[in-house]
């Protein structure tokens, strides 16, 4: 029930954000999108908090719970970006992506399960939270890169004069968001390795989940390096940001459902 309300709230917020982005001078639409997003986010926060209280442990121990957390963090990251850089268009992507993530929870059991012995560790808090903060920053970067590519295509036909400046802005914003997410992904991988050493006796097992996280880390490392090569800025960087987010999604879902992994419980 609550998840359904959240999905509707985020879809509404996403549509308002896109409209506010299209009608750049409409302050009413801008504030309406901000208000709807904040209200939905507050409800979302309460849902996570209540689940944590009921479960008696941090509410990010399985795919169902991490989907809810992932959505929450994406919107938080979006609002932080909005406060600093006033990019309401990203809210459209954030709203739609989060609504989709929350819709996926309907395929999973919402039952609160007690923690498996291997999950009973303080590292759970840092490992999962930091990894998902990183993923969320990459999700917002995905929105920024997608906007870059859309504006690039649409701008050519519209004939507007400030398209290049807007493109440069979104190119730079994608890079900044990746630069923010990258340390958190690094922290997530490092804490995961330390936890693995405490739990499984090896800090690196080349387990599919670990390997996919490493691939994601490398792709975003390439993204960051690309800033130093002029020809690789812009479109190539935007496409790589999209590909990077695809690897995030595969690391998150693909490994859980398609590959045999030590992280099977995730």
């Amino acid at each position, binding site marked *: 029930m609550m998840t359904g309300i959240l999905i509707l709230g985020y879809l509404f917020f996403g549509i308002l954000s896109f409209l506010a982005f299209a009608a750049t001078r409409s302050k009413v639409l801008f504030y309406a999108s901000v208000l709807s997003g904040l209200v939905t986010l507050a409800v979302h926060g309460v849902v996570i908090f209540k689940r944590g209280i009921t479960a008696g442990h941090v509410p990010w121990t399985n795919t169902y719970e991490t989907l809810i957390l992932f959505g929450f963090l994406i919107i938080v990251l979006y609002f932080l970006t909005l406060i600093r850089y006033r990019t309401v268009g990203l809210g459209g992507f954030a709203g739609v992506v989060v609504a989709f993530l929350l819709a996926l929870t309907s395929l999973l059991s919402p039952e609160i399960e007690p923690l498996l012995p291997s999950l009973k560790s303080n590292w759970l808090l840092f490992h999962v939270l930091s990894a998902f903060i990183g993923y969320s920053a990459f999700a917002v970067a995905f929105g920024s890169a997608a906007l870059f590519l859309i504006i690039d295509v649409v701008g050519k036909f519209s004939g507007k004069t400030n398209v290049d400046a807007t493109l440069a802005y979104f190119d730079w914003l994608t890079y900044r968001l990746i630069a923010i997410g990258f340390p958190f992904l690094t922290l997530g991988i490092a804490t995961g390795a330390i936890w693995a050493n405490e739990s499984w006796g090896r800090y690196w097992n080349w387990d599919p989940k670990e390997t996919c996280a490493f691939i994601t880390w490398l792709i975003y490392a390439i993204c960051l390096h690309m800033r*130093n090569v002029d020809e690789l800025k812009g479109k190539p960087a935007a496409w790589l940001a999209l590909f990077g987010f695809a690897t995030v999604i595969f690391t998150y879902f693909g490994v859980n459902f398609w590959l045999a992994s030590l992280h099977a419980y995730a």
Partner: protein
Amino acid sequence: MQQKLRQVFQSIRIANTVLFLVVLCAIFGTLPPDLNFLSFTPQSIFRSPWFCLLLGYLAVSMLWLAFIRTARVLSRQPNDFSPPSNRESLPFIQEVVLPAGRCGRLNSFGNAVLQVIKAYGYRAFAQNKSESEYSFYAAKNSLGYWGSPLVHFGFVMVLAGGLLTFLFSDVRDLSIREGETVDIVYAQAKVKLEKFSVVLYPSRLEPEQYVSRLLIRDKEGRVWREDLKVNHPLMIGGTKFFQMRYQIEIPGLELVAYRQGLPVEAVPLKLGERKPLEQVPIAVEVKEVLPDFAISAAGKAESRSPYFRNPAVLVSVYDPPQSAVAAKKVWVFPDLVSHDSQKSDELQFTFRKLKKRYSSGIKLSRDPGVLFAYSGFLFLILGTFISGFIIPRALTGCLRLHPDQGKFMIEILGHPAKDRYGFERELKALGNAMTRIKLEAAS
């Protein structure tokens, strides 16, 4: 030659290409292990010389870069504000025109401007003071220059840790039965598994913890007990012990045959052992044990959990005893005997004295690479956070008399920065703050 080598290890394009190749190798390594390409399994790529060569190139390249950048940061003087080397953007210029008011002297106003810049967290220094021009430097977040060397050095440390682990680590899996003592030579200790327990959550079927109660005797003859739990490894004789998995063995049980509600005969049996009864001309065999018997929705017998809450054994009855095929198979419980309303000679079974013994799966590890890898992680984390969040900003400025007499003109030039748009905003705020200071000074 030396120059070319340096170019190879410093080239960002080659580094990106190698990173991309490592990505491709890693993608190949995640393919399911039953796929065999060119006679090697996907996972084996992580031990292949080609993969090691790629990592080796990255290690040398990153180490080189870390040294160069460290040297550059260390050689930077506190008041050296030469623009950073990256080519992020063109410098920003912010011009502020201020009425001179009663401030009068250029120098005193210049000092006030420096105070404003310092209020924004900059270290600011006047460079050239004259009657007609006052120039200054300002910078902040110089710690940010350490980000890149730390990241690259951290990655090299992690790779070095991985190499040490690959070459010198000793990781073994051990299975100890309850009551069994194992002499672990390289831990210089004898370890006995006194008891293994699966601790369940209160009134639930899920396990909360697996605990191996170990009795340890070291080479000095000291004896002590330790509980080994999941996520709580023990260090014994320089070797780390990790609680991993467990197994249950069923050494045997006693099958009791009943007729008309009365016991006829009890026969000790091992799993899979076929024995004839003495009182009745049949043979029995226990094929399967379910610890927590239940009937599934599909109508099949299955175990709800791995815990012995409702144990049942599948008994095959051979009549006559030599027959190859079982005459019937029945699920038998420890305390249930069915009674027909009409007395018949058909045999019923129960079982008792079900012996079960746990084996604890323990991992032993001596890994000299851990310290290197952990140090590398620390550098990586520090470096990435510094790079991502502490962005150096530097500006130079000049205060001049405006062509319109009685006014000053401040020209601020922001040096290229990663956070271009944030910096632009700060420069605008600085300009506004300078206007306010003038007004305060004038009043």
